[in-house]
C-alpha cells in the first residue's frame, strides 16, 4: 500500500456516467408568505441513473436552499421522500431522473413547441401541505395508523424468553411487514379522496399485519371493528391505485381483501355496512351467470338467495329503498349506461361453454384457497433450476433484520 492517500481521491460517488440536463418543475408553497402555491422550474445536471431526489437536492444545494423536501436514506428504506412525480405517488429516491424525464415526454409533442417537457414534482395528495414538498403526515397518515391498534395484543403474560413462532406461520404477513410508512398509497388512494375518513390502504395493511400474526389474540375483535366501521375495510373500491403506488410491493389492496375474507368468510362477521353481502353478491352472480348481471346486484346484496327474497328482512327493504337515490344518480351520470341492464331476465348468456369454464374457475379456487405470497417466492422471472424445486414452499426467516 502506498502511503499516498491522494491515490484514493475518487470523488464521492465515483460515478463516471455522463451528465444530462433535466428540468424539474416543482410545486412550491411557502406558508408564511401569505401567497398561494406556485410552480418553479429548476435546471439540474446529473447522471440519468441518479434519482429525482438527487435532482431536488442539487437544486436545493446550488440554487435555492429554501426548497424543502424530507429525505434521509436515499435507498428506499426510510420512507421519508414520498412525493408525486409526473402525477404518480412514489418515492423521490426510487425514481431515476432519466426515466422520469422519458415518462414526462412519452407522448408526441402535441403543442408543437419542440421543448422537452419537465419532470413535474408535487407534494403527496390527501394530506395538507406544510411547505413545498413536505406534507403533514400526522393529521392523516399517522392518525389513521394509530386507529388500527398497531401493536401486538398478546395474551398478557410475557414469556421468559421471546415468543417463538414457526417461520412458515409468518409468511402470510411478511408482505405487510415490508411497509416503510412512506404514505405513497395514502396519497394515491381514490377512496380517501371521496371519503377523507376512510381508514385507508396503509393503516389497513398495518391492521392485517396483526390480524395475520399468530401471536395476536384479538383477531376477531380487530376484524369486527374494521368491518363495522363505515370507513373501514368495505370502503375500498378495488381501484389498485395503492398497489401501483407502493414502492415496496406491499400491495395494500390485497391486504384489505385478506381482511375482508378473514372477517366475512372465516369469522362470518355480518357487518352493518352490508359490505360482505355486497361482495358475496358479485361472487355469486358471476358464478351463476358468467358475467355481472347488474339487475340482480342490489337485490342479491340486500336479500341474498331464495330465502332472502321470500322473507326479506326489514334491513333488506331499508337497504334497497336507501339505494334508490344512488341508482338514480348512476343513471343520470351515465354510469349505468343502459336501462335494459336493470331489467331482470334479459342478461345475455356467455357463448358456447364459457359459462362452464367460469364454474370450473370457481371450483379450482375453492379447492386451492391458499394464497401464494408473491412477496416471498418473489421474483416472477425466476427460472426454476434443479436446486430450486422447493421454491414453491417458501421458508422465511422472521428473525430481526440485521442491524448494520
Amino acid at each position: 500500500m502506498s502511503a499516498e492517500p491522494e491515490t484514493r481521491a475518487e470523488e464521492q460517488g465515483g460515478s463516471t456516467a455522463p451528465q444530462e440536463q433535466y428540468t424539474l418543475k416543482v410545486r412550491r408553497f411557502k406558508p408564511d408568505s401569505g401567497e398561494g402555491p406556485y410552480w418553479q422550474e429548476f435546471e439540474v445536471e446529473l447522471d440519468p441513473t441518479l434519482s429525482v431526489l438527487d435532482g431536488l437536492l442539487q437544486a436545493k444545494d446550488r440554487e435555492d436552499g429554501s426548497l424543502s423536501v424530507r429525505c434521509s436514506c436515499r435507498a428506499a428504506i426510510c420512507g421519508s421522500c414520498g412525493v408525486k412525480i409526473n402525477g404518480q405517488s412514489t418515492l423521490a429516491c426510487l425514481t431515476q431522473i432519466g426515466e422520469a424525464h422519458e415518462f414526462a415526454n412519452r407522448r408526441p409533442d402535441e403543442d408543437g413547441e419542440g421543448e422537452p417537457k419537465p419532470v413535474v414534482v408535487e407534494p403527496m395528495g390527501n394530506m395538507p401541505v406544510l411547505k413545498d414538498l413536505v406534507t403533514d403526515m400526522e393529521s392523516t397518515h399517522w392518525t389513521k395508523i394509530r386507529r388500527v391498534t398497531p401493536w401486538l395484543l398478546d395474551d398478557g403474560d410475557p414469556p421468559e424468553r421471546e415468543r417463538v413462532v414457526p417461520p412458515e406461520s409468518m409468511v402470510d404477513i411478511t408482505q405487510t411487514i415490508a411497509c416503510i410508512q412512506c404514505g405513497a398509497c395514502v396519497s394515491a388512494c381514490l377512496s380517501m379522496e371521496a371519503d377523507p375518513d376512510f381508514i385507508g390502504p396503509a393503516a389497513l395493511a398495518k391492521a392485517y399485519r396483526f390480524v395475520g400474526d399468530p401471536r395476536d389474540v384479538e383477531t376477531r375483535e380487530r376484524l369486527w371493528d374494521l368491518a363495522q366501521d363505515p370507513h373501514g375495510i368495505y370502503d375500498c373500491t378495488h381501484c389498485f391505485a395503492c398497489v401501483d403506488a407502493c414502492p415496496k410491493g406491499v400491495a395494500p389492496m390485497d391486504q384489505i381483501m385478506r381482511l375482508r375474507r378473514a372477517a366475512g368468510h372465516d369469522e362470518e362477521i355480518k357487518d352493518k355496512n352490508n359490505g360482505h353481502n355486497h361482495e358475496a353478491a358479485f361472487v355469486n352472480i358471476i358464478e351463476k351467470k358468467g358475467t355481472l348481471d347488474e339487475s340482480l346486484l342490489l337485490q342479491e346484496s340486500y336479500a341474498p338467495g331464495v330465502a332472502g327474497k321470500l322473507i326479506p328482512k326489514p334491513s333488506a327493504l331499508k337497504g334497497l329503498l336507501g339505494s334508490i337515490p344512488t341508482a338514480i344518480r348512476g343513471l343520470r351520470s351515465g354510469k349505468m349506461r343502459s336501462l335494459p341492464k336493470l331489467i331482470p331476465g334479459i342478461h345475455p348468456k356467455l357463448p358456447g361453454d364459457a359459462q362452464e369454464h367460469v364454474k370450473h374457475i370457481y371450483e379450482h379456487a375453492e379447492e386451492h384457497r391458499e394464497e401464494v405470497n408473491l412477496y416471498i417466492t418473489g421474483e416472477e422471472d425466476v427460472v426454476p433450476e434443479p436446486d430450486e424445486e422447493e421454491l414453491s414452499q417458501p421458508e422465511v426467516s422472521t428473525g430481526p433484520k440485521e442491524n448494520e
Partner: protein
Amino acid sequence: MDMEMIQYHPTTLAGKGFLITEGARGEGAHLLNANGERFMETYAPNKMELASRDVVSRAEQTEINEGRGFPDGTVALDITVVPKKRIHEALREIVLVGRDFAGVDITREPIHIKPGNHYTMGGVKTDIDGATEIPGLYAAGEAACVSVHGGNRLGANSLLDTLIFGRRAGVHAAARTKRVEPARPSKAILADEQAMIDGVIGRERGSGRRVSEIRKELGETMDKYVAVFRDEQGIQSALETVRRLKEEAKTFYIDDRGTVFNQDVLGALELGYMLDNAEAACVGALHRKESRGAQYRTDFPERNDDEWLKHIDLKMNGDGPEISYSDVTITEWQPMERTY
C-alpha cells in the same frame, strides 16, 4: 472520546454510497477485483470475505489503489455464488437495491461496491447509564460513546447502542427527573440562541460561501484524508482545511428566511456540528500514532499497546479540542493480536 475511530463499511453501492448488507457476504458472496480474482485470499486466507470490516475495507481499498479495481473506483461483490432460493429468502432487500439503484440482477451478475464511511465508534463520552460529565445531559445511540465497540464495531452490535444503552439512558434520565427540578434556561441564554439563529437567517446573500459548498468540501476532504488509510501529512492537510472551513462558516449564508420547516437553517446549524466533529476526528487521528481498529496509519502500521492502549478524550475550548486520556476498561476478553 475515540473520535478518530470511524468505521468504513466494505460494501457500499458504487455511485450511490448506501449499504449492501453484510448478510450478502454472510451468505457466502465473494469479493472480486477487476481481474476476477478473489483477492481476500491475499489478505485473510482463513476468514476470506468474513474478516472484520476494517480488514476487508483495507483490502478493497488496496486493490483499488493498486489498479486492480474497476474504472469507477470499485471492486465487485459476486452474490451469484449464493443459491437463488437463499438470495430471495435472505437477501431480498439487496435484490431490490440491485434492481432499482444499480440496474443489476444480483442473482445473475456481480455488483460494484467500495468501502464507505459507515459508523462512528467515538462520540459523547457516557457511563453505562448514558450519563455524561455534564449533570442532566445524556447521550445514546451512535452519538454516544459507551465504548463497548472499542475501535471497531462488529456487525449488528449497534443494537447495543440503541436497545441496551438507549434503554438504560432513558430509564436513568427518567428517574433523575423525579429528583431534580427541570432546567429553566435564563432569558439571556434564550436571547443569545435566538440572536444566533436570526443572525444565520438574516445574513446577506453573497456575504460568503453557500452552506452546501462548505459541506461538500468538508465531506470530500474527510473522505480523502481521514478514511480507510491515513498518514500524518494527509490528516494535517485535512485539519487545515477543516479549520479554514470553520472560519468560512462564520460568513456563510442561506436562502430560506421562513419560519416553517426551514431546512436551510437546520442545515447551517448542522454544518457547525459537522465541522466540530471533523476537527475532533482529525485531531484524534493525528494524535494516535499507531494503527488500531478502524484507524490505520500508513506511517505507523503497527498496534502499539505500550503507548496507545488508552482512549483519547477531547474537550472543546476556545482554540480547538484539548487532549486528555482515559483508561480502557478490559473485562473478560484480553486484547490480542488479530491474525487471519
